């Protein structure tokens, strides 16, 4: 007899397996199943295997699931396939979490550690023997895309920054770990565009959303972090919260609740107020309130919508916003996944799978514009850049350029 434990054994995801009619739609769209027989596929490890799970974790191959969430997105019956897998993986990893999964998922720790000595950290991570050593110790593949640390964090820029006088309401800016340590320019451009629109931008002290911990099955850590963050971001009641990291937005909007059962009122409040940056701009545009002058950019760029953005079920707002820029042609790559899936493609045993998953996207990028590609999430940008050699930017870079003309 096993004692079942709280949320993991219990809630919506498990109930949703009743809706599965075995139709195979998830299997046809799963990017991992498409490239390796080592993964039995979302239908198998999700609603099928779940009927056999009780207490013992016996199907470790489910770890080949990259948690990209495509299966849940495409399921016409409402089965929370990816969520089922995430919960099963958390149960599996409770006992034997590899060191690697712990290290990768502590995004802020990694950032904090790397920051003061960024050039050295970059040199170490970029230097082959060191990467080889890291791979041996923690199982990160030596060719995998790793973030580049910046010498200046976003908050150190923000402290020195002088804001213009606001002409409309407030927004809270959520920079996320990447926007703080690795993708500082993206945060800066986002704030400058929001301020150009006349908003008073607020940047409360903020930690990590816990997504990396969650996708590696470290639920307890992730629950603590996302709850703490929700209280930090929720400081101004009713104020929109805007973020440039689409995956962190997804965590706050729904993943923390649906996968880990976090029911903190602060999270629920923040989840309804938070907007992806392009989603926010599109809403303004639809309301006729995007009072910006877009200057032409004569260029064709490929765009990749990250899995965790698609998973929010709002379409691809970046495409609609970028189409406001005269001269700019945006080609939707229509790829399923870039293969990084958060931290999946970093891992030694998954690296080749991740590269194969991303190949159709990489080919599309090389075909459309080998110099520049656009994508809303930082880990995907690192993966595409590493795998294609293109510069990959957040859509705000093009919007910023179109407005400020830099």
């Amino acid at each position, binding site marked *: *007899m*096993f*004692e*079942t434990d*709280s949320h993991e*054994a*219990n809630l919506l995801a*498990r*109930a949703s*397996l*009743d*809706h*599965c*009619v*075995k*139709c195979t739609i998830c299997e046809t769209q799963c990017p991992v199943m498409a490239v390796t*027989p*080592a993964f*039995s596929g979302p*239908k*198998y490890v999700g609603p*099928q*295997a*779940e*009927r*056999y*799970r*009780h*207490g*013992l974790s*016996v*199907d*470790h*191959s489910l770890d080949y699931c990259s948690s990209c969430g495509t299966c849940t997105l495409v399921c016409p*019956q409402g089965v929370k396939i990816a969520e089922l897998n995430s919960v099963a993986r958390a149960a599996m990893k409770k006992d034997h979490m590899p060191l690697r999964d712990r290290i990768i998922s502590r995004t802020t720790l990694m950032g904090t550690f790397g920051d003061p000595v960024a050039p050295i950290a970059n040199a170490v991570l970029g230097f082959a023997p060191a990467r080889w050593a890291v791979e041996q110790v923690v199982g990160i593949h030596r060719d995998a895309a790793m973030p580049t640390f910046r010498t200046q964090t976003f908050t150190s820029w923000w402290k020195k920054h002088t804001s213009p006088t606001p002409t409309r309401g407030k927004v809270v800016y959520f920079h996320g770990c990447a926007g703080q340590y690795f993708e500082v320019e993206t945060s800066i451009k986002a704030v400058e565009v929001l301020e150009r629109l006349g908003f008073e931008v607020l940047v409360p002290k903020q930690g990590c959303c816990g997504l990396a911990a969650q996708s590696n099955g470290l639920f307890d850590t992730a629950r603590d972090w996302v709850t703490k963050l929700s209280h930090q971001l929720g400081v101004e009641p009713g104020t929109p919260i805007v973020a440039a990291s689409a995956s962190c937005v997804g965590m706050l909007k729904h993943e923390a609740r649906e996968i880990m059962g976090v029911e903190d009122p602060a999270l629920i409040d923040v989840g309804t107020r938070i907007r992806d940056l392009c989603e926010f701009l599109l809403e303004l545009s639809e309301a006729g309130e995007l009072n910006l002058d877009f200057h032409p950019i004569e260029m064709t760029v490929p765009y990749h919508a990250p899995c965790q953005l698609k998973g929010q079920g709002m379409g691809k707002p970046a495409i609609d916003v970028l189409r406001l820029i005269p001269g700019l042609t945006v080609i939707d790559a229509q790829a399923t996944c870039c293969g990084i899936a958060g931290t999946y493609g970093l891992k030694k045993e998954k690296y080749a799978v991740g590269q194969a998953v991303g190949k159709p996207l990489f080919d599309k990028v090389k075909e459309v514009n080998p110099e520049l590609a656009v994508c809303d999430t930082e880990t995907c940008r690192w993966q595409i850049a590493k795998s294609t050699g293109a510069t990959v930017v957040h859509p705000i870079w093009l919007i910023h350029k179109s407005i400020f003309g830099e």
Partner: protein
Amino acid sequence: MKNLSADIVVIGGGSTGVGVLRDCAMRGYSAILVERADLAQGTSARFHGLLHSGGRYVVSDHESARECAEENAIVSRIQPQAVELTGGLFVVTPQDDPAFGDKFLAGAQSAGVWVEEITPGTALRQEPRLNPGITRAFRVKDGTVDGWQLAWSAIASAKEHGAQVLTYHRVTQIHSADGAVNGVSATDLRTGEDVRIACSFVLNCAGPWAGDIARAAGCSPVEVVPGRGVMVAMAHRLVNTVVNRCIVPADGDILVPVHTVCVIGTTDHKVSDPDHLEIPRNEVQQMLDAGEVLIPGFRQARALHAWAGARPLIKDDRVSASDTRHMSRGMAIIDHSGRDSLRGLLTIGGGKLTTYRLMAQHMVDFMEEQTGNVHPCTTADEMCPGGEKGHNYLITHRLKDREADRLESPIICECELMNRKMFTDLLKAQPNSSMDDWRRQLRIGMGPCQGGFCSARVAGIAHEESAVDADRATGLLKLFLEHRWIGLWPLLHGDQVRQAALDQWMLHGTLDLDHVPSSKGVEPEVTKPKEPLVVPASDEGKKSTTEVKEGNND
């Protein structure tokens, strides 16, 4: 005409018959079992799957409770692969009298049945979907058992001790001379060949059909009152522990997690013909209501399949014949030497699957009293084949097995995780079998899609492996789908409607199964022609009939 001989012929391949066969064989008798269909195809598989701890009887029947507790431990030990040690709970719901819990505890103590009261909070942590309003909860040692696995491993043991088994053989006559049984005639329903078995003793273990067998021996009628019970399987295990309502035993008071499903049971209505059991919609509704009391939201969960089984109760004058639940659950043995002046024939009735081994022991003891031979019963001491590892069944077994061999053999039935090798091994072992036989062995088509995806694959493989020709393979496929529908249409609602619609699209729309030629009569006709049914006044509306030629225990 084939001639065989044996000391004893056992009639009926349900749990009682296989237990008796094994006991006879282990005492050194030559014995042959004759069954008109497949093993454990009647009542022994059309139940909810509960291996009683005795808890259910601690208030009403101490003796029965004690026997259950003892036999539960024995069966779990000698046939571990058929038994899952789920544990059980008795819960007092908001609709029930908490004071009954005191009677329950006191009864358990005097019957010697292990019971432990726990707080409602502890029970809810163990089974989070339970009604949060429960006021008391008790742990018991209920388990769940697969009636087919139980029968097959007992048969394997009997065969090791020299017994023979004739399935798909219908008994046509029991012969006697000078007031003593001396043989049994039967017909092989697949080949039409007649078989005559010379013997000196016949043990009638035909359950609800025992009256027919007594008639074949020319005895005066043995009145069997089949009690029909309807059960509903839900698509996954809403609980992982057996959950009983702590009340005087009633309809719909047990929820049993067995294999990948959980089963709510059961109703109880007297019927006249165990070959044609209906699944009345109002009884399905009654089960859904009962489930709702134990698990709020039960009606929104996916109901997979329904079936009906017939309790084999021999009529007992102490209670009214229409109230079969309160008839004694204990076994009854009819000695035909006194009753009908025919020596060498015993008929057994009643009992329950949990105590099948003990019932067999009593029956063979009774026979030996008459014949004067005395051998010790050793059936409780020896492990049945297949259980040597001593591990009880776990819900995770098939998932674990497929994790090990998923890169070696493709998975054919995805719901029940049956791979191609499991199926082709079975075809080699039992080449002349039907798709329903394969289902009972391997759980093909018993999951959520009810054969929508796997049945055509199974037909294709069977044909490929030359077990059957294309006509027969297509015929088996069609018959299998017809049989699945018997347990589907009376409960069709919610998610199962979506599944039924998709299955129709695939099999009839895309594959155009309706226009593929096939042979008819692919399975032997084992049931009697349908007789007019006596329908209780309360059972108005549309009825489904379970043909007993195929089992429906999901």
